[in-house]
């Protein structure tokens, strides 16, 4: 177990190194000059060169990368070109919100997705199953922005159950989590239905029924833990998918996560922030996958980590 963990952590570090190298190179070849953005419209070429020198952007790319990596290893992600603040502090300020949202979204998608998947599997072939299929596809096909605004409009503006955006309390978290979880829920419900159908045919389900267990107990205690395995493997990946979609949800709900930071940085080629966010999210994704792999043995004792 510990050896497995150590090996995986080393591999993870290599993956992160790879991500950072590729990202750095991509940003390097990206045709947009950050110095121009810093220097402003009326700057003379000398001023521009002066700033380029100060930032070390006149050096060969590997030297730049080396410097960056060296800083990174010392916890220094550099300073934003445009905001001039430390990237690490910008990310640190926003990370808790992002993590909260992701956790909320994961819970939302698991609760919604798994329930619907199980219900669909139990009603296989019936009209309810078909309706749920359409619903899952609708959830996956729905543009997030529209979902977000619809939820906001109905539950916050019209019904007043939740605040119209903002951050801080649990009730702030509900709508953004659901919005973000809806797509995953559609996805999970399909996965869950299909693995549930497999599990329901297993001999041990018959054994459980032969014991006279109630329907709910058979489903929740016997079928679910077995059926959930393929879904667990997906949760790790979700973090990556969330990273792509988080900006929409954040901006509709005024959620202070790193998605908006990243989006603005991408629009304006604020390289240190892009690097910082990329590495942070890569860490989250890698850890998420690792976590998913570590959890599985607890659900399925047959799985041994090697």
């Amino acid at each position: 177990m510990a050896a497995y963990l150590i090996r995986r952590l080393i591999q993870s570090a290599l993956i992160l190194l790879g991500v950072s190298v590729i990202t750095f190179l991509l940003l390097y070849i990206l045709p947009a000059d950050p110095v121009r953005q810093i220097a402003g419209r009326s700057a003379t070429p000398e001023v521009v060169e002066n700033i380029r020198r100060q930032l070390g952007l006149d050096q060969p790319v590997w030297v730049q990368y080396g410097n960056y990596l060296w800083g990174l290893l010392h916890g220094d992600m550099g300073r934003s070109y445009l905001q001039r603040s430390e990237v690490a502090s910008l990310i640190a300020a926003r990370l808790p919100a992002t993590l909260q949202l992701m956790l909320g979204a994961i819970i939302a998608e698991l609760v919604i997705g798994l329930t619907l998947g199980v219900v669909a599997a139990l009603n296989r072939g019936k009209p309810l199953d078909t309706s749920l299929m359409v619903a899952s596809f609708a959830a996956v096909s729905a543009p997030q922005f529209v979902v977000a605004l619809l939820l906001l409009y109905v539950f916050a503006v019209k019904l007043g159950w939740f605040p119209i955006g903002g951050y801080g309390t649990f009730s702030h978290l509900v709508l953004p989590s659901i919005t973000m979880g809806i797509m995953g829920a559609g996805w999970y419900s399909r996965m869950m239905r299909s693995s549930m159908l497999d599990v329901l045919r297993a001999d041990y389900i018959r054994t459980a029924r032969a014991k006279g267990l109630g329907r709910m107990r058979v489903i929740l205690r016997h079928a679910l833990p077995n059926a959930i395995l393929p879904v667990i493997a997906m949760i790790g990946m979700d973090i990556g998918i969330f990273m792509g979609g988080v900006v929409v949800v954040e901006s509709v709900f005024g959620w202070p996560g790193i998605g908006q930071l990243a989006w603005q940085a991408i629009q304006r080629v604020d390289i240190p922030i892009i690097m910082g966010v990329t590495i942070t999210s890569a860490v989250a994704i890698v850890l998420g996958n690792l976590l998913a792999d570590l959890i599985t043995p607890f659900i399925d004792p047959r799985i041994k980590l090697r």
Partner: protein
Amino acid sequence: MTDTTPPDHAAPLAAPTERGAFARMLRRPLAVLGLALIVLIVGAAIAAPWLVSYPPDQQNFDGLTLEGAPMPPGGQWLMGTDLLGRDLFSRLLYGARTSLIIGIVANGIAVGLGTVVGLTAGWMRGWIGTVLMRFTDLMMAFPALLLAICLAAIFRPSLWIVALVIAMVNWVQTARVVYTETTALTERDFIAAERTLGASGARILWHHLLPHLWPTIIVWATLGISTTVLLEATLSYLGVGVQPPTPSWGNIIFENQTYFQSAPWLVFIPGAAILLLALAFNLVGDALREVLDPTQRGRR
């Protein structure tokens, strides 16, 4: 000794041949519905020039109100107009061309690639498996949008680039899921049995592992249609893909989503189109799976 063969087996359950799979599928009404939808959508995309009254990028003078608002569906405009006074019906049909290529070709390639990588890694194990899976992890942790922006800035944007990006990015999840399932499957006795028969790796992969992965592949491939069609819009927005005024279902939604209250048809009609396409493929996929997977029909 008497003949101990149970006589009741003389009545064959059904004697379908593999070639009959398609025919058997056609006996399912839902599958036929799905197929019909696909044919309809593809047909409409191909026949678009003959079906529409306005070119897709023509900004009609009478397509906007005096205040510059789009026209709702009905009358002259079958599905209404967009914010530039263009005929939405026309844009939808032409947009299908883009979206079908993304949703079917690019997504298909992604799922195919993911399946191949996952299968190979799961089957080979060893260092090849490790390298493949860690590469998959790397791709997963890698910011796809950034790659897209770089490609956008370097290459001339086109449908093919966006298709390429989607194919490059979207295989990852499929690969991981297929890998997990493959490793479990290769432990099963019937695979060992195949090996003792002398089956080649290719034969085992193709004939014995792949059929078990069908359900997963179908789920991923059909759900992927929706997500990739929407992803295309994001990527095009960042400059990688089709550029305005070329329509695609995704970018029609994307351009107009803030207007979904004042001009709901601009969002919900293309949204419904995406949903229908994905559902149609799902219906066919489900039917195909049930035809191919006899165990779905109940077991002792």
